[in-house]
């Protein structure tokens, strides 16, 4: 049996919408509907789907920002929603996230080094000097310099800020990196650089990745396996080449067409 890092089992998530009529119950939106999948160590799994298909909701649940309404999420065999707050906080160093908005994922009032050091400070095991060394190390790993740590986020371009976000995410040596539309806000040429960086880091660090994008072209370039999501349901799943080569559903074909591949 392959080494399962992440197992998502029958996970659903419902959102109550604002009440529309006084005497009718508030309508419920099913953002994720009975989704199940596994992620093996060292693998990159892509999740693709149009906007609103539930990709970010899935990411939020994998990151334990929100609990699922049904089902379980097992990380390294542990149900992340069954852990107590302290255990979960400790486990968090092993699964980190890169967000979509390179202008939103760094606190504008904090220096880059401060933000990168935050996960290590949260764990509370490393001395300030160790953290400083590690911050410089990851900055260099993502193609920046230790000196860049003294600057504030607004002094960087979108691509550089995404590098900073990646540096921060790998600072605790996680096993899993969740990237939700991590390159979608970037210019195409910058996208390629960030994708290359992610692939290099994955090879060097043995990271597993859950790579989420509405853009099939991006997913195809980086993922071993892919899941196609529509209205919260997994429509098809399998090896990237296979799914994209012979899409079983019209929806997948339209995504392939939209990506102009």
């Amino acid at each position: 049996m392959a080494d399962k890092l992440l197992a998502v089992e029958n996970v659903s998530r419902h959102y109550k919408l604002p009440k529309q009529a006084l005497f009718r119950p508030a309508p419920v939106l099913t953002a994720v509907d009975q989704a199940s999948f596994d992620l093996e160590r060292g693998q990159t799994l892509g999740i693709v789907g149009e906007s609103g298909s539930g990709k970010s909701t899935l990411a939020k649940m994998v990151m334990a920002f929100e609990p699922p309404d049904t089902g379980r999420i097992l990380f390294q065999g542990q149900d992340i929603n069954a852990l107590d707050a302290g255990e979960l906080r400790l486990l968090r160093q092993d699964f980190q996230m890169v967000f979509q908005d390179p202008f939103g994922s760094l606190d504008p009032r904090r220096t880059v080094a401060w933000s990168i050091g935050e996960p290590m400070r949260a764990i509370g095991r490393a001395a300030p000097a160790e953290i400083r060394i590690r911050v410089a190390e990851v900055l260099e790993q993502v193609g920046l310099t230790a000196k860049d740590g003294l600057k504030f986020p607004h002094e960087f371009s979108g691509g550089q800020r995404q590098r900073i976000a990646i540096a921060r995410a790998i600072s605790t040596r996680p096993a899993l990196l969740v990237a939700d539309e991590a390159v979608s806000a970037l210019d195409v040429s910058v996208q390629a650089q960030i994708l290359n960086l992610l692939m290099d880091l994955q090879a060097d660090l043995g990271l597993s990745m859950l790579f989420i994008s509405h853009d099939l072209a991006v997913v195809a370039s980086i993922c071993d396996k892919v899941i196609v999501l529509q209205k919260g349901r997994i429509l098809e799943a399998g090896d990237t080449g296979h799914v994209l080569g012979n899409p079983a559903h019209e929806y997948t074909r339209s995504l392939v067409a939209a990506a102009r591949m």
Partner: protein
Amino acid sequence: MNTRYLPANLVIGAILVVLTLGVALLSVFWTPYDYTQLDIVHKFQGPSAAHWLGTDQLGRDLLSQLMAGAGNSMAVAVTAVVLGGSIGTALGLLASAYGGWVEDIVMRLSDLSFAFPALLFAIMLAAAFGPSLPNVVVAIAFINVPIFARVARASANQIWTREYVFAARAAGLGKFAISRDHILPNIAAPIIVQATIEFALAILIEAALSYLGLGAQPPSPSWGRMLSEAQTLMYLAPQLAIYPGLSIVVAVLGFGLLGDGLRDVTDPRLSRER
């Protein structure tokens, strides 16, 4: 935001505030005369080289009284707004961070207090616990708690949806640490704006309570008390009412304008509508 052209309300407000605070601060170290010093022979004097603004019905130097009154007024307003503002902000942060019943309790309490006119509440408190400046401070602070709780909660709710807050959660930070490290620094601007506006109101309430005899007690100087003492002498010596009245207007207007101006430059959403 265009910082090259500061709005007029900000500039005028800042000038008036600096003037008021400067005078208040100066009064701590120096006034031309002891404001309690009686000099019946020289009562009701007009402006002169010895007494720049003249003297009152007991021959006390008016300028000295006004300056000392400024000191009192600012001390009350600062203490009350900082006290009420800190407690209110903390409650608002708590409500925003923990939600659920914590939020319900904080918000219902603040609803309750909003149903109550502020001045009326201050009068009741002063009536219950006796007239004194410390009680005025407590009353004004109390009024400010729900106001800041609301502003802090509303602003904090917005910050909680920012990606850097999710990033902090992913880092393993708890709600308290996130509130301290990310939420509070990023809601400082609206809190400071609110504080400036509440400061103007605090000056007004202190003056009103002292005017009603519920605040500063003789011989403690206060603009409100000067006004009430001048009331019976309105026809004989209107300047005795005009000076403290003007002082109140300048201080309240100054902080009010400064608060508006700060809001304009820190909240692009509102200033764009202008």
